[in-house]
């Protein structure tokens, strides 16, 4: 859903390498160049915000997701919203069959287009206007609090407060994975993501579990230093065992924790903490990877990075939008934006080549990209080739 088409991935990689080679390295202490080096991601030039004044039933927004047909879905404290073609929001609530009014997470079945909705009290399927609710009492869902959901092949994976549930869509059978039948240190599953043939489970207090459904294997990634408050040895593994969110794209695993942010790729682990890196806040709670770039939701705004360059979107004390751009070996570029994120507490993000959407605790924000530095679109990649 959120990755480049497989056929284009080698070209995207090549483009990244070209950008890396072309990266200028000014001498230490050099003044900021007038022309900054290009960034591997677009910058947001303004935000459009949607709250109760725009017809949303709640200012508190937990999740945002654009399905493959281009429709925008918004999970709020008071129901699921579908943004209609005219820009209005249509609400779907418990009275329509939604298992609970507070929507925590959203995922699309890439085969059928069905939308799976994790709520504070059950899992809900939205299929062609039909709504089916799954709860602990009417199904094999391990627990009613569904913090994460994803669809991989014929299986829906639900990360719940008491284990991971796997619903086989062909047979209707459920499987439960928790601390009693896997290597999970704790049963509290806070996030989940399908990754080709694997499933990654973010465990509250148990790091990350890598599960191969075909082999039935489970591998655990834990913070090697086991210290909750300090990253004693950087880049040695997940930064912390309390995984607040995770995601995966093209072989790269991203982990959010309340003590910093981690990435695992073919080179190994890389960790970032506030103060020692441009990461906006150690309190990271959502990541949306797109074309090798992580869009990170924190309690103070959003950080965007490919691991080298960073852009941070936050708010000043007076509520103005602030952007900070960190390029390697260059001075930090700070600018006040004409508009700001609706709120700094970012619980959900959806980014594609055209725009970025942010679920915040005081409204939904749309980030409009600056025209001069877009994501590399297929046509651009073709030109490079």
């Amino acid at each position, binding site marked *: 859903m959120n990755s480049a088409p497989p056929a284009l991935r080698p070209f995207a990689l090549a483009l990244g390498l070209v950008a890396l080679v072309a990266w200028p390295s000014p001498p230490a202490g050099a003044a900021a160049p007038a022309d900054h080096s290009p960034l591997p991601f677009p910058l947001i030039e303004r935000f459009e915000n949607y709250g109760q004044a725009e017809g949303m039933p709640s200012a508190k927004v937990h999740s945002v997701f654009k399905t493959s047909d281009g429709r925008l879905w918004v999970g709020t404290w008071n129901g699921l919203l579908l943004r209609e073609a005219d820009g209005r929001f249509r609400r779907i609530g418990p009275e329509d069959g939604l298992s609970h009014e507070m929507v925590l997470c959203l995922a699309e079945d890439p085969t059928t287009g069905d939308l799976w909705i994790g709520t504070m009290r059950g899992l809900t399927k939205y299929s062609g206007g039909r709504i089916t609710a799954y709860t602990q009492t009417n199904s094999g869902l391990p627990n009613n609090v569904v913090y994460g959901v994803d669809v991989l092949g014929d299986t829906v994976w639900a990360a719940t407060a*008491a284990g991971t549930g796997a619903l086989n869509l062909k047979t209707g059978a459920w499987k439960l994975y928790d601390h009693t039948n896997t290597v999970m240190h704790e049963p509290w599953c806070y996030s989940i993501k399908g990754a080709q043939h694997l499933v990654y489970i973010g465990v509250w207090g148990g790091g990350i579990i890598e599960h191969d459904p075909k082999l039935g294997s489970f591998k655990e990634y834990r913070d090697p230093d086991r210290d909750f*408050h300090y990253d004693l040895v950087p880049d040695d593994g997940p930064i912390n065992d309390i995984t607040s969110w995770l995601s995966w794209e093209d072989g790269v695993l991203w982990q959010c924790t309340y003590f910093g942010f981690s990435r695992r790729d073919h080179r190994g682990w890389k960790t970032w903490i506030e103060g020692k890196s441009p990461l906006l806040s150690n309190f990271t709670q959502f990541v949306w990877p797109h074309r090798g770039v992580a869009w990170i939701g924190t309690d103070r705004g959003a950080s965007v990075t490919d691991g080298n360059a960073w852009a941070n979107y936050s708010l000043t004390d007076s509520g103005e939008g602030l952007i900070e751009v960190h390029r390697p070996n260059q001075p930090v570029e700070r600018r006040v934006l004409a508009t700001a994120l609706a709120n700094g507490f970012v619980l959900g993000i959806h980014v594609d080549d055209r725009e970025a959407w942010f679920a915040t605790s005081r409204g939904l924000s749309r980030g409009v990209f600056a025209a001069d530095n877009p994501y590399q679109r297929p046509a651009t990649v073709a030109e490079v080739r």
Partner: protein
Amino acid sequence: MRPTGPFARRWLRAATLALALAGVASPQPAPNRPPLKLGLLLPPAEPEAQSIRRGAELGLAAANREPGVPLDLVVRGQPGQWGTEGDDAVVLALDEGAAALIAPTTGAAVHQALQVAGRTRLPVVSLCSDSSVTSAGLPWAIRIAPRTDAEAAAIFAVLRHPTRPPRCLPAVPTDRPGREILHDLETAAATATPDLQLLKPVHVPPPAEDLGALARDVLAANPDVVLLWLEPAASGRFARQLAQLGYRGRLAGHSRLLAPSFFAALGTALPARRWVHGLLVPAPLAATRSNPARDDFLRACSAPLAPPTGESASPLNTPAPFDLGAALAYDAVRLLADVLRRAGERPPYREFPLQHTMPGATGPLAFDPAGNRQWELEVLEWRPDGVRVVHPQPRP
């Protein structure tokens, strides 16, 4: 939880009377100001439910005597499958509209409350001693109880053996609670001065199980000290079992043994009560020293508790001088009331990390940036002539 001893029954009657009086004395909330709700997560399995609920209700009455927006207490806890505490936290946070949560002494329930708070930004005050609670890193969550490793360190500082490091055998619960307690005990033992030897623990299952075999295992290991880190009532039952099998070594335990249920479970048989002498328990300074908040709490309880002595070395005159579980819940409610009133129209999570200190029944309510209570702990020892403070050493 059924009161089993005359002490506990007397305690309960006094508390009921105090509650009734407090209700009469409380000002009525202004009709145009709906009360802010505090959610108390109290699962049926919570061993100290009675104390916690009583303390929370007394704290609510005290908080509502103060000026400011009125408060209400919503208690939730239903039997169910594993993970039901998460559902209960959701009910409190969303259906009941609680502005803040109080989480119980069991770590699993606390973590589920924290998970809900992680997505809702509701402040949480935890009564659980596991170090893992504040290790979760939620900025708007704090622990009001002492940490297990800090309590253990206080006890270890007292233990001595004339010829070798003292041999300490932990008696801990089964499953996750036992695992977390052992982790914290090992952390404290690793830095203990002088050295001590932590023996292989016994994992004590629920009370329906036969405790005799486990007690015999303890005796076979010949420890110098048994570290009672079970729930108060279970600790009392196991200590009694050990005594009946002839154990005459020393006992030590966590601060929540300062509970009527512990002494009730020890039984009224004279040998067991006499034998408990030598018991070491860490306690906040407020358990032995007078302060206005503590005295208010004790008056509200109207219980036959120890008179304020003002001297750390003075003996206390009752076997359970201070119901710490009730006092912590009392302080948790008062603290959250203060946080919510200070926040006013602002979201209460913005009050965290808490910068100010307020007096509490268990001592000053002050917290470090990670949300851990900043405690001054004493170690109390039960002796034939009463209870004495043995650490830090009282000045001559």
